[in-house]
């Protein structure tokens, strides 16, 4: 495993419409790192700069003279960098990615990315098949369907598959579960975990769901007004609910419950990130150990 971080951002500043009367600063001196194989979360209230930040990861936006963005060793501030390669290495899935669909047939739209990379037809087909399998769309059933005849959830899967087909090393997802109903959301997150596990794809998740962050990333950066206000492992960050709340966010309910109980001395202050973990913690605190660890069935009715 490479020691060099996959993405390193230093002192990144960015302003929209710089030099015009309508200039607005979006990022102020961001420093951030993503290592290969990690799962990193980026959270923050609306307007804190999350989308602006992640658009620097694949070179859509470029750093100005003060900041630096290094991706797999390449300096994105250097005009000579091969940006096509960067787009392939860092796959960016936008919010409501369905908006990018333009081909008539599903299979063609997913194949668009690989085609732009100059990949030949047989391999393209394989990539499309793999990408569709990854998102849960049956290749034969869906590849010749009309893109615009699909349901919203299916269209989103097609859009994500379109990015996966590039076989990126890092997958950046900007609020990709927003607007999905609970079961679709759970399915997408499960599939992302699978991708991470099978392909060692580095994941960067921008999300406004704290529960999602708690259960699907390892480290998290909290943005506020264009800067990094908090960062660390998820447990470290969620151990300070009051601070998180001041930044316009919250912690998962189970974490909040454990925190309240720790304040009155009932628990040891551990930070549970999921309901089963929370239940174990509380039962232990009440002197009631579960019969077998992990026997608290949450069932797999999901």
């Amino acid at each position, binding site marked *: 495993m490479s020691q060099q971080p996959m993405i390193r951002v230093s002192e990144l500043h960015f302003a929209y*419409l710089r030099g015009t*009367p309508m200039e607005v600063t979006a990022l102020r001196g961001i420093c951030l790192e993503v290592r290969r194989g990690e799962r990193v979360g980026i959270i923050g209230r609306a307007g804190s700069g999350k989308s602006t930040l992640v658009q620097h990861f694949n070179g859509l936006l470029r750093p100005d003279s003060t900041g630096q963005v290094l991706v797999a060793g390449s300096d994105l501030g250097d005009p000579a960098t091969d940006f096509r390669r960067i787009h392939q290495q860092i796959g960016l899935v936008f919010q409501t990615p369905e908006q990018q669909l333009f081909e008539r047939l599903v299979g063609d739209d997913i194949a*668009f990315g690989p085609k732009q990379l100059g990949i030949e037809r047989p391999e393209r087909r394989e990539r499309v098949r793999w990408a569709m399998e990854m998102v849960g769309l049956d290749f034969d059933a869906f590849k010749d369907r009309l893109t615009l005849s699909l349901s919203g959830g299916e269209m989103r899967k097609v859009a994500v598959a379109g990015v996966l087909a590039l076989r990126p090393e890092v997958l950046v997802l900007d609020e990709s579960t927003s607007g999905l109903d609970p079961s679709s959301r759970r399915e997408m997150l499960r599939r992302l975990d699978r991708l991470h596990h099978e392909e060692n794809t580095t994941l960067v998740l921008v999300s406004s769901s704290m529960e999602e962050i708690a259960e699907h990333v390892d480290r998290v950066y909290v943005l506020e007004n264009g800067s990094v206000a908090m960062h660390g492992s998820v447990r470290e960050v969620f151990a300070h609910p009051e601070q998180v709340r001041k930044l316009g966010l919250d912690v998962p309910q189970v974490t909040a419950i454990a925190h309240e109980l720790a304040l009155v001395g009932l628990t040891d202050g551990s930070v549970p990130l999921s309901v089963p973990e929370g239940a174990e913690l509380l039962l232990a605190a009440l002197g009631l150990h579960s019969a077998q660890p992990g026997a608290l069935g949450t069932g797999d009715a999901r």
Partner: protein
Amino acid sequence: MESIQFQRYITIGQYVAGRSLIHRLDPRTKLSAFLFLTLAITFSRSYTANAILLLVTLGLVLAARVSIRYLLSGLRPALPFILLLAIMQLLFYGNAYVPYRMEPVTLWRVGWIHVTNGSIQAVIVSTSRFVELLFLTSLLTNTTRLTDLTHGIEAMLRPYRRLGLPAHELSLVATIALRFLPLLAEQAENILKAQASRGAPIAQRGRLQFVATARQLAVLLVPLFVDAFRRAEDLILAMQARCYAGGRGRTCYVQLQFDRTDALVYGLTLVFSAAMLVLRNWFPI
């Protein structure tokens, strides 16, 4: 790819907040004044008339307290065209222009190139007309919010409703178009970013290089149209839910006030433009 930020390049349509005399005028006054002055500008061929009109335009710019530099920057996108046109007029149209109050004099003739005092005058007059019109148009929208312009137009058309003109429906079309324009622009930007992220050959070094094939435009236009239609469908439902049923029986929240200052400005520009039109052939040069 540098950020695509469309707003940067366009001064027409941009409202610049302010409290100047011009800002505070009724939109109907400004629209009428704009029309009168445009007529005067269109029919003025002499150097004198254009000098007067240029001064009047600059006077209005000062009265509106809008920066001249800002207005000049709006010229930039059109500059290549202006220059091209000017050069062509200067060099090749010597015969076509009978100069105002002057005997046609050929200044230089080589092959197709035929420069006369007529063509020089044509260039100067055209350029100054263009600048005057651009400034006035920008000024109109810089000092009046587009929604106020639509209210103004609707108010001016309202008397014709009795003749069957759907004044409110038309102004609602304009209002909705204005409202959704920035949204569609933003959507276009998002779509381009998403496609570029997939490797589409869209933008290089801050300039959008639209390659002319329909295939490549499809990556932007198809999703944009789909998005626009989807928004339209949603909007129809929302308007139905809010009981929109055409202009009949509606009241109006925005009440325009036409006061003495408006009457004065209206009257002055009317008289001035009429004078310029009537006297257009009477100026010395």
